[in-house]
Every structure is written in C-alpha cells, then in structure tokens.
C-alpha cells in the first residue's frame, strides 16, 4: 500500500531488547484496558433478578364458578420489567372445592411452559406441545412432564379469590420459583 522504500530494521541485541520491552509494555497497557472494559461490558448485560414480589390480585367471579369443575379464569395485574410497566392479563386454572377452598394451577405446563387445556369429556388436562397429560389433582399421568402441575399461592377472603402470579423453572422435577 505505501510507496516507501523498506528500510531494514536494526537487529542489534540492544535494539531488539528495547523493541521487545516496548512490545511488552504495550501489551501490558492493552491488557489492562481490555480487562477494565470487558468486565463492565459483560456485567452490564446480565439482568438482575428483580421482583418476584407480585401482589395477591383479586380474581373476579370466583363465587359464580361451578364447584368441582376445572375452570379457566383470568385476572388483571401489573407487569413491571426494568422501567416498563404494563397492564397484563394472567390466566389460571381454578378448581373450586368449597366457598373457602380451591386449587389454583399455573396455566404453564411444567415440561416446557406451553399452555395446556382441560378436556371435560376425558376429565383430563392435556398439553398440545409434547403430549403431557394430567388428572384433576395435577398428577402427570402421561407424557414427558417431570412434575405435577404447579399450584399458585392463593387466599380466599370474604368469599373472593386472590392469587399471586408466579413462574417456575421448566423441565426439572423440583418446583423452583424463577
């Protein structure tokens, strides 16, 4: 690229030693620079695990649902991610046993988090993704799901149902909150 003549470099041991020293020092500064920049650049990308401090939200119409039948219910909540707050609708499966007792399932299959559905003709929950099947008690009776359906924390106060939305890690036998 250049049009210079190539002046040969001196190979005197002193000059070589000086050159090597400078190379070493350059490498040291570059190394420190890289170190001081890489750690921040990588740490910056790792998200913090803020907020699984979800509140118990009211699920409307609990007194109106039939007893003993798994019913899909929805409730509104606020989803906060970093600086963005969104109104969000969550869905859950609820089996009302009595006016003050219920089972609340997360709608996400514990295998890989697809949403499953209840089939009243078979009285079973079935997941469309990989064929997991669960009975009304949440026990996995077929398919690859590693654990039973995840229940969500709930309260019944004054006849109304309140549920706390939570996420659990998929594909492992233990129920671990994310």
């Amino acid at each position, binding site marked *: 690229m250049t049009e210079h003549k190539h002046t040969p470099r001196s190979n005197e041991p002193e000059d070589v030693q000086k050159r090597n020293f400078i190379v070493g020092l350059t490498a040291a500064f570059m190394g420190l620079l890289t170190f001081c920049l890489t750690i921040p650049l990588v740490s910056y990308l790792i998200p*913090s695990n803020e907020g699984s401090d979800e509140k118990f939200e009211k699920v409307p119409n609990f007194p109106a649902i039939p007893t003993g039948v798994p019913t899909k219910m929805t409730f509104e909540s606020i989803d906060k991610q970093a600086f963005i707050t969104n109104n969000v609708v969550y869905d859950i499966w609820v089996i009302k046993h009595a006016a003050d007792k219920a089972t609340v399932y997360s709608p996400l299959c514990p295998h890989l988090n697809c949403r499953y559905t209840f089939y009243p003709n078979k009285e079973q929950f079935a997941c469309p993704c990989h064929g997991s099947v669960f009975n009304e008690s949440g026990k996995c009776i077929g398919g690859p799901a590693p654990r039973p359906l995840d229940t969500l924390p709930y309260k019944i106060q004054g006849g109304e149902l309140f549920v706390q939305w939570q996420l659990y890690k998929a594909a492992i036998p233990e129920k671990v909150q994310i």
Partner: protein
Amino acid sequence: MENNKKSIVNVVKDWIDERTGLIKAGAEFLHEEIPGGTRFSYTLGSACLFLLTIQIVTGIWQLFYYVPTIDYAYSSLSYLRLQVPWGWLIHGFHYWGGTLFTIIVGLHALRVFIWGSYKKPREMVWLIGIVLIVLTALFMFTGPVLPWDKTGYWAGQVGIGIAGSVPIVGPLTEQILQGANKMGQMALLRIYVLHVALLPGAIAVFVMLHLVAFRKYGESGPWDEKKRKGVGYFWPEQIFKDVVVSFLIFMLLVFLSAFFPAPFAGLADPMDTLVTPKPAWNFLFLYQILKFLPGPLEALGTAGAPLFIILLFGTLPFLDKSPEKNPFKRGFVVLTGFAFVAVILTLTWMGYVYRSPAELAQMEPPYKPAELSEMQKANLTDKYAALVAASSQETKSGKELFKTLGCTECHTTTGVSSNKQGPDLLMAKTNNRTAEWLYTQIISPQTHNQRTIMPPYAHLSRQKVWLLVNYIQTLQATGKIAAPTPPPAAPTSTTGGATDDKAYGEQLVNSVGCLQCHTVQGRVSNKPGPDLILAIQKDKPTKDWLKAQLLTPQQHNPMSIMPSFASRLNDQQLNAVVDFLDSLKSRKVEASAAAEAEEASGSAETASTSSSSIQSANIIGDRDHGAILFHQSCIMCHGPHGDNKTPGFTAYQTGNVAPHGVPALNPIDRGVYNEDPQLFVNHIDQFIQKGAPNPEPGGPAMPDFGQSHALTQAQIADLEAYVLWINGVDRTMIINPGMEPKEFFFMLLWLTSVIVFLAACYWFIVKLLK
C-alpha cells in the same frame, strides 16, 4: 539444511494469507515507516480512532436498554444509569466521550494544520477530514436529543429551528428532521435513526477512506531537514505511543464518569418556561453569532457561518499552495489559523455565560414590600409624585391607559359588582390600598397572591404604571359607589322566602367574585381560599360567624387575604349569601362521590397503578430546577427552604408566624421520609398530585398540583428531587453500580502505577546488569 517444520501459527497464517492476502496486508500496515522517527505529536489521529471505537461500543451497549419513545426515553436511560451494573460507566463514557472526541478531533486538525500536512500530495486526506468534522458535529447535534431531557429537547428544538431558517433548503430540512409539524415522537425517531445508523455508517466509510488516503503517502514528518534523518516504525514504537495516549484518555474518561457524572436534567417539558434553551457546547459559537444577526440577517448566520467555515477549511490546500511546511515560514497562514481558533473559543465562551432576561429574573429575589424601609417608602412616594407631575411625556392619561392596556377586560370601575373576573376597582376602595401596593399589584400580582389569574404587567414603563395607580386612587377618592341592585321581590311564604334567599345568595356567590378564590364542589382545589362545602361542613360555623367573615375576615384570621365585602353587598345581600352558605352544611356532595367513582374505575390519574410511564414518581427530576419551582410554587406555605419555622404564605410577606397545619418539609415527617429514594418519592407524590385538606382550621389546603395540571408531571418530578435533596436523599443515587465509580477509578490508578513501576524496575535492572 532447511528446516521444514513450521509452527502451527505459521501454518494457519499461511493458509489465511493464501486465500485472502490479509496477513501480508497486515504486515505492510504494521511496517509503516515514519520519516524522522515516531512522535507523540502524531498520536492524535489514533486517539480519534480510539475514541470513535469507544463511542461505537458504548453506543451499541446502550441500545440494549434505551427506548426511543418520548414516554420511555428518559426513564429507560435513568434505569440504565442507576440500576444496570456498570451502567454509569457505559453512559459516562459515551457522554464524556462525545465531548472529548470533538476536542481531540479539533486538536488533531490543528496539529495537521501546523505541520502543513494538508499540502500536496495530501490534500485528499485533509478534505476527507473536513467531512469527518462535519459528521462529528452532526453526532453532537443528534446525540443529546435522545435522552429527551430538558437540555436535549431544547437543543434539538433550537437546532432544528436553526436548520429550518436556512434559505431555500431550510423548510424541507426542518420537515424531514421533525417528521411532523412539530417537535415530538417522530422527530425523536428520526434523530435516533440518524445517530445510531446513518451517521455511524457514514463516519465508518469516511474514516476508512481517510486512512487509505493517509497511507498512500504516510506521515509527512518534521519540516526541518535535519530531523528527517532517521526512520521510525509504526510497530511497535508509534503504536506504543498511541496506546499510551489512548490509555490516558481512557483514564480521563473513567475519572470524568466517576467524579463528574452527566447531570439529570429532568424530563423534557415544553410547558416549562423556566428553562433557557441552549445547544450543545460545541454549537455555542454559532448560537452566539446568531445573537449579532437579528431579523433578516439571521440567514447569514445559520447558513452563512457554517458554509464560510467549511469553505475556508476546504479551500486551504488550494489557497496555500507553496510547498513550504515550516510553520515559522508560513506566518500569515498559521496566525490566521490561530486567530480563527481564538474567535471560535471566544464566541463559545460568550455563548456559555449568556443569561437570558428570563433567567436573570428567576435569579432575583421576589419583590417583598414588607422589607421596604420607611425611607424607601417615602422615596417611592416622592418619585411617584414626580413621575405623575412629569406626565407630559406620556400623551395618554391614566384613564385612557386603563382602557387601552386591557384592564377593562377583567375590571369595571362603576362601583357596581360585575361578573367579570376581577373586582370592580371602585368598590375595592374599601381595601384601602397604598400606592406602593397598587404598583406592585400591577407589575407583579403574584407577589401578593401566588395563584391570582391577573397577569403581570411588568413590561410597562414605570411612568405608565404610576399613571394607572394615580387613576385608580383618584377614582376611588372621588367616585361614588352605586347602590347595589335590589333583590327580586320576596315571595309570601316563609319557606319560599328562605329558598329564594338561598337561591339569590347562590347567585351572588357566583357573581360578586367569591369563585375567584373559593370553589363550591366538595373537593380540594388549587385556589387560594378553601372549598366552601368542605370548610362549612367541617367547621359548621354559625350564621353570625359567616356574616362576620364576609364583613371583616381579618377579625377571624389576621393573616387572611380575603377582602371585605362590606362595600360590595348590602345587608340583605349579605344575609342571602349567609343563608346560602349555611345551606351548604346539609348539601350532599355528589360531586365528590362522582370524583371518587372516577378515581376507582379510571385509575389513570393515580401514580401507583398507572400504565402510562409519564408519571412524576417514575421520573428522576432535576433538583436544581426543582429549587426554582419550589421558590415559585411552594414557599408561600412551606417557607423558603421548606422549613416550617420560617414564615409562609402571606405571612412570608408580613413577617408573621407560619400558617397553621402546614407541615415542615425540612426535615420532613419521619412517616413520609425514607432513605430509599423511590419509596420516599412515592410517599410525597400523592400529596402533590391530589392535594390534601388542612387539618387545622383557617390554614391553607394543599392544592392538587398534579390533577389540576397546575404543574406538569415533569415539574413535579423536579420538585420531588429537590424535596428529597433537602432531606439528604439523592434521587440520582446509583442503586446497582457494579463497582462504585470512585473505587473503580482508584483501582485503575493503582493498577497503572503498578505496571509503570514494574516496567521502571525492569528497565533499571537491565541497565544495571550491563
């Protein structure tokens, strides 16, 4: 004997080189020869490249969090800076990097200019360099707008306005930049695309062209033949010098990011008139030039100045054609260059220190008539008399001015109450105002009553104002107050009479000016007087008390600014009003029920569950701006520093004790205080948004600044930052630093010293062993 064994590294290198030629090209690149040896003065170019790389990397890294919408730009950036680990560093590098890049580019251009390296055959490198300077300026124009904070918004607005005033291409440029008929979301998106895609692409291309053109002939080297004897090499000596300089720049960036973080200028707020729009610092010279070119000459500045500068730079290699490179033999050219730099620096400084008249007015303390000494009062009276006597200069009389200046829009002078906004000025004579009071009322009514809707007439000359004062005083001295309008015929039945009187009383309340200061709705308002339903239902005053309040309010509360209605209402009217007010004790407050229902269902106004992110509690405000707003909106009740011990409200002017029931803000109640800035803000936000009734009778209620839009959300955020600050809590506290900024800087300093020390020891030992 040939050694056929090659190391793996060489095998790979040869394989790549055979197929791309990259290894040889790299070797050529590193082998650049520099006539006269390597020098630190040649490092500025690679310092530019280093800073550009920093800008690109930190810029891209910020894209992981930055959202280019007007409702999330500011909060996403605040999140990045305070809650993402090392976010302070990434943002700080980018913020200071922009400024340093501009400065280093300038120094690099200056160095090249002094060395005469723009001369043949290197003209192309110089010309491409000019393009790079223009691109740098465009980066500095688009970048600061992206945070959508007060400084950025106005810099963008002013900049686009300047671009729009360029003849011929201006209006189209303005339309394309704004993407709409005003500055807003579309403008932000376009400026964003410019800053993160178009400009980086352009500068990458031109940087490569710049380097290619540069490498054709290389560094021009020393102008002194004696110093051109030897040859230096790019690798490793010049690269070593480049790395040292780049490393020092890196340390400077860390230092600036840690000790001088970018300010939080508060969310952009076009409704806030307390901000002086100024462009980014590198455009201040242009901003200053425009001040010298008013009216039709403006185009000379907006188009002429940049064009002139670019032409000056661009034609330099063709105007200065002599091959002489020694600056001491090119005195005229070099001195012209220095003069140019001096002019730019001076204009920049002038632009920086400029304060607009509005800004100067903000800095002045408010006019406080209570503090005038007797002598000053006497002086004013003398001057007033003298000015009135010298009214031959003013051709209009006070009476004519009253008509022509717009006073009649709100005031009558007939002695009969009207349904205009302001009081009838003849009836107001019972207030017995002095000439000085009237003077202040005309030029700054807000001094007497912060929430008056009377606009200040501060622009009038003193003479005009004194003429008006004289007119009002003459009117009040000589005018007769007409008899008040008779009430409608009283019906025969007593119950009917009561109803009629109440209805008449309500009519009067609506027409004689009560509603200027009171509301009758059952909710707290931001008017100076209490809501009458709330007050009367709470205190249940007797009719006698109500009548006395109308006749002499000061008898119940010496600090009250409520005027007497003794002269505006006759006895029957007073009784009617009292009857009406008394009936409010049993009035059902449908209005407040409706308001509650609206709050329950809508919930759009409350700060806690809103989905819109432009809520003050989510915005990190500017505490310095908050101090100014506090001075304007809060001190009359809370005192100058929010300290309840100092006088507030009208007491602030008369020097009496603080009004009842107003809580101190400094130090604030411990139930509200919280060392977590977000929790602290959440506590006080509800008061500023919705207001609050005064727990003690007679004291002023807290107005609902948010709901009534008396203050914007951005302004409330600034106020909150200030209130936190005076309580020792920093709204801009870094929550997730990764590593504390100052700690990081000192660690860096220590590691650098260790390297330098070890290198010195090694060198010394080597010398010793010789």
